[in-house]
């Protein structure tokens, strides 16, 4: 496999910076000049570590065109994500391809609530920023199990009109789930769009809540993928009764139309095999 590598691809994918953000959450700045240049908010990459590693999708949190780097924020949950997180500055990510998926539809909607949970905050960062730049009032609800797991608060506060922190245990911000924070905002003012990124179960409940108040909602889905270019169909979800591919039709969909229960079952498909 490495026999094919040209000087161009060999000089890429080097880890320039590694930072531990919280228990199990690592931030990497990776040299990837072509992706840094072409990526837009909402895009993702596929990463593979080692010759026999698994291909897994990761969202892009940020990029630096000048330095030719992209920022990846990864939570160690499975074997493959742990393997990536074990890499250090100076190491190379064996394979990195992107940007994949459709970019987020950005326009001036009015007031946008960005509801994110855990590492879902990372891909939300460029989206929220772009929404702000388009003239929206942007309210970010950051949620996590506990205060130590809240990430990127400072970055969000640097541009957002308001940042609401929610923790399950009340150790930081308000005690309660992400939906509690979102509902507060909806009860207080007119919300034109809700964007949600996080665990599938969280997005399901954000979507149900927003639907109750008839707030249009977009969810960014993170399903199982192999190639990430439409070839395998592992990522398929039912949206509005139709089968769609997250990798090329998404990753963002009208959340009210997404069959989250089916998605949750499909996410567990290989659990017994890992």
């Amino acid at each position: 496999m490495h026999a094919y590598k040209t000087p161009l691809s060999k000089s890429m994918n080097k880890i320039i910076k590694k930072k531990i953000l919280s228990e199990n959450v690592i931030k990497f700045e990776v040299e990837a000049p072509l992706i840094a240049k072409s990526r837009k908010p909402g895009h993702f990459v596929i990463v593979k570590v080692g010759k026999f590693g698994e291909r897994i999708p990761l969202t892009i949190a940020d990029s630096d065109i000048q330095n030719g780097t992209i920022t990846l924020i990864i939570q160690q949950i499975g074997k493959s994500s742990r393997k990536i997180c074990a890499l250090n500055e100076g190491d190379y990510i064996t394979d990195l391809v992107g940007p994949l998926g459709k970019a987020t539809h950005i326009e001036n909607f009015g007031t946008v609530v960005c509801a994110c949970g855990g590492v879902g905050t990372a891909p939300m960062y460029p989206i929220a920023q772009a929404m702000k730049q388009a003239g929206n009032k942007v309210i970010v609800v950051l949620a996590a199990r506990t205060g130590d797991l809240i990430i990127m608060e400072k970055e969000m506060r640097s541009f957002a009109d308001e940042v609401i922190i929610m923790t399950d245990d009340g150790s930081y911000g308000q005690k309660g789930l992400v939906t509690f924070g979102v509902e507060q905002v909806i009860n207080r003012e007119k919300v034109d769009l809700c964007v949600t990124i996080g665990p599938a179960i969280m997005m399901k409940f954000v979507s149900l809540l927003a639907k109750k108040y008839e707030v249009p909602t977009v969810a960014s889905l993170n399903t199982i993928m192999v190639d990430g270019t439409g070839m395998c169909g592992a990522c398929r979800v039912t949206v509005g009764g139709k089968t769609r591919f997250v990798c090329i039709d998404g990753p963002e969909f009208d959340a009210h139309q997404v069959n989250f229960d089916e998605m949750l079952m499909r996410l567990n498909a290989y659990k017994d095999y890992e």
Partner: protein
Amino acid sequence: MDNKEYLKEERNEPWREELRKSMKNKDRVAIPRVKMPELDATYRSRSYDEVNLGLSLEQAVQEAKRCLDCPDPSCMSGCPVGVNIPKFVKNIERNEILEAAKALKETSALPAVCGRVCPQEKQCESQCIHLKMKSESVAIGHLERFAADYEREKGSISVPQLAASNGIKIAVAGSGPAGLSFAGDMAKYGYDVTVFEALHEIGGVLKYGIPEFRLPNSIVDVEINILQKMGVKFITNCIVGKTISYEDLHEQGFKGIFVATGAGLPNFMNIPGENLSGVLSSNEYLTRINLMGANREDTETPVFFGKKVAIIGGGNTAMDSVRTARRLGADKAMIVYRRSEEEMPARLEEVKHAKEEGIIFLTLHNPIEYIGDEKGRIKQMVLQKMELGEPDASGRRRPVEIPGAIETLDVDLVIVAIGVSPNPLIPSTFSGLNVSKWGTIIVNQDSLQTDLSDVYAGGDIVRGGATVILAMGDGRKAAAAMHKK
């Protein structure tokens, strides 16, 4: 020199004339067609070793004698890349195997691949003069494989002659058969060719699609290495239209682009339960195994090891999937096909091999629903029995439902192999490129030029799901047209 003249000149070489005189045609026709030696069916149904073992030198020379070296070789009209078939076959007959391999490479960038996966019975061999004499055709495919394998095993692989470099940069999107064939021809013409591949391995469908037991990856790698020796550059993990745009390619000085991104989108039937876990596309199943090595202990990609596996479809991909499932330990590995065996599009050899390996053929059955357990895992499939009616647009008899003839079958894995659609990635990112209602790129039939004058396209992105050799033919055609321009 035009092709006809060239063929005539080649045929008139003294050694060819001598060979023709050395044996009477009657005696040549009397030789029975060679049988390809293969692994024992019981052993191989549990092993990933290549099934066909290849001819011995004696078998190959004997088979080559069957060829009559026709003055107007009709076999060549059946070959999409126009291999000089009599020239390579006669070189085998006179025991100049390395010369035979060179003759193959005059027109084909991948002879060891084609000798293994081409549907010869529908192409070159279907035009063989023997068939007109009620005799079996010359085993051209087996001989092609023999010559290519012999050259490789002898370690004396020839690199085709190249024209002087003209320094013109050409980009290829996709490293499957169409892209590789195009790259080989353009390198021969003297261009500076770079192939961009989206995946982490070169070879496209030859790597992710076709299993080891039919086409070992190491064979594909050898052919790719020859292209590298010819100066073709490969860049993996780079998606044209995403990582690098049409405009970026211009900026980097590329003067021509060949789009060969394949039919990357698996089709589904849109029936209830199709999104249960344990129902997957053949692309996903085969990619997990062939590209990611999910069947092996030392890799991290998981795959389902089904015991009762149904594959939906009757093409080569369906055969590859069902035989893979059998090798991964399926007790019951079934083909579920809505027409009868006669209408199956798969190569005859694949159907034969599948049957020998204990594959169950449920023809005239069509799935109408999948039923899952409480965890959303497939557990049963509902089948509608069919019968054949009047011929349809494809000329094959249309399968018609038999009212009320429905049965339910226990399964723990279903692979959907009912075809693929073109990958929308490039068409959606190259503005000015026009596509048909099926999503295939529209090209000029003669030149394969698209509506963007510097972009040509071929293979499944234009055809919408065909064969390795047709894709390779497109690669050659586009290269010739781009070179002329």
